[in-house]
């Protein structure tokens, strides 16, 4: 954070202030930890991504652009590590419990419980532009069993195919599908309760 940081700050002082960087770093480490389940690998990946990104920071007009850029770098790094693990057949076991929200959401005959029936979501496209929505999203993701959150983000954010996920983790295809289903049920329920049913913001 010395020479290089100074140069960046001199050209674009409040774009990359300490507070913004600290928050960005926190989000990145949290995500990398969840995906890699390895503290030092996660720290290294985040550090490299930040250094790589900050070299080009002067060309970004907005903080959101910086965030997108560093996450893109981090994403590639994590995908590389996951693929490497798969190649070396270092299947990493998936720790953690894995409860089934279906037991709660559906009645004995397999129908939605009355209070759990999905209602229509108003303006989901607007939500992604709202910073508070992302706080709620993070909380909901945190609320999932680690296993489910990790697989969901591997599939939907890192955009890995099922084969790759199963190759890098000790999980069968059918088990993966079950866990993705559970993650979706639960994440949908949480966003519904905490955001979409809360009315206008």
């Amino acid at each position, binding site marked *: 954070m010395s020479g290089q940081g100074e140069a960046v700050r001199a050209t674009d002082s409040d774009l990359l202030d300490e507070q913004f960087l600290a928050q960005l770093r926190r989000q990145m480490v949290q995500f990398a930890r969840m995906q890699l389940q390895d503290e030092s690998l996660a720290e290294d990946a985040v550090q490299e991504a930040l250094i790589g990104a900050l070299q080009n920071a002067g060309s970004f007009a907005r903080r959101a652009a910086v965030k997108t850029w560093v996450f893109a770098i981090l994403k590639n790094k994590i995908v590389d590590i996951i693929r490497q693990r798969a190649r070396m057949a270092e299947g990493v076991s998936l720790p953690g419990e894995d409860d089934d929200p279906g037991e709660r959401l559906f009645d004995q005959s397999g*129908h939605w419980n009355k209070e759990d029936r999905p209602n229509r979501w108003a303006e989901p496209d607007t939500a992604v532009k709202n910073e508070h929505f992302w706080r709620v999203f993070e909380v909901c993701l945190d609320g999932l069993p680690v296993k489910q959150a990790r697989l969901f983000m591997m599939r939907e954010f890192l955009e890995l195919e099922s084969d790759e996920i199963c190759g890098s983790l000790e999980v069968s295809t059918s088990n993966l599908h079950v866990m993705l289903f559970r993650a979706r049920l639960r994440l949908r329920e949480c966003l519904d309760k905490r955001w979409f049913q809360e009315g206008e913001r």
Partner: protein
Amino acid sequence: MMKKCRGATRLMSDALERPLTGAEKMALRTHLLMCGSCRNFSRQVLELRNFARHFSHQPDVADDAAGKPDADS
């Protein structure tokens, strides 16, 4: 054979992972015709995918708070 909501939602999730069989598609389509809650779910499961893909594009409230000239114009 009629699919119940629990089975139908599982199929909608699976459809994002693998091609459904003809019988599965038929069962799902039939169920969706009759079930509004599951029709909502079918849209929302795609929204979840869309949200996750936007995970790193999330806006930063500080952009607006800082009143950057390029934020609005």
